[in-house]
């Protein structure tokens, strides 16, 4: 299903219109005269030093084998020049074999069609001195071996591989080669076709090999069955194999603003790519919601949820797959499909569930920032699949993974490391906790109602305890001003886990604080109000569950934000804040 959807995508967006040619950045043109004498090396790079994309005969899939392109390829094949092996001794130099393979194709063509330009190229390739001269056109350090080269002969404007006779020959030959392959039913397209032995590779998948990795591969005997080899284990036609890889490579391609044109990095080793059978415009709007760039966030302030409003495209399909590199292979971590409308609705709900506090801007927060806020201080991310499941849950509207809750609570227990980031980090952590709680369904219980900002009528014990803790912290702050370690740094963890061990002592302390603080009387009264919501017989439970600890954190945050919010309008005098609201 997934490969079929990708193959369809490639066909609809015209990514495989021409299976014999592909668009690649060509760095240099080798200009020859009609006799094959080198006239010069013409750089085609733009101002940023990148080659200009051109249509060239499709390059064969390569790993360690030698397999040449036709009339266009990299330096290692066209000139037989590999700067890496040239400088490193003792490593087998494949230059000769590569050049021979490249030349062989040209000679093969020349045997069938006598094109003077082709003859010029053949003459150049066969001439060691001419090639050496071409290499000498650039200094030795400049060559990387990866430059793409193509040919131009005389003052022709067309590249040699673009000449009509040459094109016709390439098409004839490709057909002949294809017809030699095994035919069978393709399990992607459902049609009979020539089956692919090995599949093209995916580029730019995190923690996969740089040269690319395969999604469909059978590289160990344990992966095969009934004596099948390679592609026969899963019959896929060459066309479909080209289609689905072209689609994925297009989605994974690096773009100007992003690491993946239409993908979201999740943790160290995975990427979620998505596509639709809707429009590219819809896709870019969804991407801007899920993983906004700075520019997206700015746009978002002007027009919130642009593109999420219902439209007549909502019945179109939405597909998402999370890929992770595993050296030479690509693994699917998660895969799902649904309708565009449903994804939009789920995204809207995701943002609503994460909303916390009236004062904070409610723009979309990139998923990586969300996850960064709850990762361990050591910088080691969460286990790889938490991020996958987190985004999966957001898109599907499912509950969030419980590890997020425990990770967020763990971070809250540690003293804040950086005051500047602290407030934002705290908000993100509590927002995640809140979203988790809203979606969490305990044993046959209805999901919790957790509000965006302070809810004075909420008498749930953990929530009230959280509020009380915030009041106590405030009291301490008002009494003692600059402190090295506040009660939050010392007691937050214990207070949220085992309230009974901490609260009685904190309450004793607070009486002392109240007598010292300027606004002591007011805060004392507030403390009394909050305490009144607790059951008088057993105000402090001995243990709180993980979910209750979450609620504690939300209560704490709400109360704390209420203090900030109250002070904000009357910024002028610090002591002018009074109890005007009650």
């Amino acid at each position, binding site marked *: 299903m997934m490969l079929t959807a990708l193959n369809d995508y490639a066909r609809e967006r015209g990514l495989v219109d021409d299976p014999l040619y592909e668009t690649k950045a060509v760095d240099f043109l080798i200009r020859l005269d009609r006799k094959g004498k080198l006239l010069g090396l013409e750089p085609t790079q733009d101002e940023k030093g990148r080659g200009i994309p051109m249509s060239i005969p499709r390059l064969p899939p390569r790993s360690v084998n030698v397999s040449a392109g036709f009339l266009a390829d990299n330096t290692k094949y066209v000139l037989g020049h590999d700067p890496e092996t040239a400088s490193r001794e003792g490593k087998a130099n494949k230059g000769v074999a590569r050049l021979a393979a490249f030349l062989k194709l040209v000679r093969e063509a020349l045997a069938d069609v006598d094109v003077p330009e082709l003859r010029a190229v053949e003459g150049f390739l066969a001439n060691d001195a001419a090639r050496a001269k071409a290499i000498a056109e650039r200094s030795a350090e400049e060559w990387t071996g990866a430059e793409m080269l193509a040919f131009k002969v005389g003052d022709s404007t067309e590249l040699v591989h673009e000449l009509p006779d040459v094109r016709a020959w390439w098409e004839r030959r490709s057909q002949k080669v294809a017809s030699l392959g095994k035919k069978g039913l393709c*399990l992607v397209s459902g049609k009979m076709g020539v089956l692919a032995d090995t599949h093209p590779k995916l580029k730019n998948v995190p923690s996969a090999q740089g040269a690319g990795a395969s999604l469909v591969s*059978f590289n*160990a005997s344990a992966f095969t069955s009934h004596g099948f080899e390679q592609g026969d284990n899963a019959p896929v036609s060459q066309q479909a194999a080209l289609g689905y890889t072209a689609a994925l490579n297009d989605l994974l391609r690096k773009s100007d603003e992003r690491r993946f044109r239409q993908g979201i990095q999740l943790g160290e080793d995975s990427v979620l790519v998505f596509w639709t059978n809707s429009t590219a415009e819809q896709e870019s709007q969804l991407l801007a919601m899920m993983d906004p760039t700075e520019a997206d966030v700015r746009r978002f302030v002007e027009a919130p949820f642009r593109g999420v409003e219902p439209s007549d495209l909502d019945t179109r399909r939405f597909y998402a797959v999370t890929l992770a590199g595993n050296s030479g292979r690509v693994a699917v971590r998660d895969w799902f499909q649904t309708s565009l409308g449903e994804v939009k609705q789920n995204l809207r709900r995701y943002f609503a569930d994460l909303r916390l506090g009236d004062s904070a801007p409610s723009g979309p927060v990139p998923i990586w920032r969300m996850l960064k806020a709850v990762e361990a201080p050591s910088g080691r991310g969460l286990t790889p*699949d938490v991020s996958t499941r987190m985004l999966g849950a957001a898109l599907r509207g499912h509950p969030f993974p419980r590890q997020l809750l425990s990770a967020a609570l763990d971070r809250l227990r540690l003293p804040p490391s950086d005051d500047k980031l602290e407030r934002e980090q705290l908000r993100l952590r509590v927002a995640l906790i809140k979203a988790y709680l809203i979606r969490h369904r305990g044993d046959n219980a209805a999901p919790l109602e957790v509000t965006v900002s302070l809810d004075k009528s909420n008498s749930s014990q953990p929530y009230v305890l959280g509020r009380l803790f915030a009041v106590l912290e405030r009291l301490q702050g008002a009494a003692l001003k600059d402190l090295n370690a506040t009660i939050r740094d010392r007691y937050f963890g214990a207070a949220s886990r085992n309230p009974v061990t901490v609260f009685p002592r904190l309450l004793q302390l607070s009486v002392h604080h109240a007598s010292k603080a300027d606004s002591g009387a007011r805060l004392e009264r507030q403390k009394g109000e909050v305490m009144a919501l607790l059951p008088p017989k057993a105000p402090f439970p001995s243990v709180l569950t993980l979910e209750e600890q979450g609620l504690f954190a939300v209560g704490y945050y709400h109360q704390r934000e209420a203090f900030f919010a109250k002070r904000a309008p009357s910024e002028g005098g610090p002591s002018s804040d009074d109890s005007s609201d009650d």
Partner: protein
Amino acid sequence: MKTAASKRMRVRARGPVACFTRPEMKAERVSYEVMTPSAARGVLEAILWKPAIRWHIHEIAVLAEVRWTSFRRNEVNSRAVVGKFDYAADEDRAQRNTVALRDVDYLITASFSMVPGKSGPEDNVRKFEEMFERRLEKGQFFQAPYLGCREFAARVEPASADLNPLASEHRSLGLMFFDFDFGEPGGTVRPLFFEGRLDRGVLQVPTRDEVLKHNGGLS
């Protein structure tokens, strides 16, 4: 000669995890969304199989919502070799990801037919039907029935009459693995595929002849 066929039998198979591995995603496993006919056949054959009978799957009904899970396991690169016991899994390890199904619950409708030439004079359809029912009732099996991979054990029992497919499940399943065409003994094995569709929670399985025709003629 017409081969004798049994009545249709209904079997319920469920379990906490299942992975009906797609052939194209076999190295890093991804499951089909619904049990494949060959996996269903495997479940039934685990309860009762004789050379004289051949199972046919007619329907696979989904009783629980399709849910996914994903995990990584350490597996090995080589296949087990009979008679070789000094195998060190530590040296031949492959970490592989699995995208599997969770909490699956299926209602399999199947029948069997007698294989001509393999049954003795004392064999008849009724005998095997009763044998199967008895074994199913008692929970007997030749090998532990499983859901796609041997490690995902299945709980198998006779289906009560009040079981209903999950009517909200509608989806195209794409080309799905049907079974292998083993051909002549010693000949080449060929995988067969069919166009799967979940309609009101039910996957209708085509007959083997229909599938063979779709896959390019009878072998």
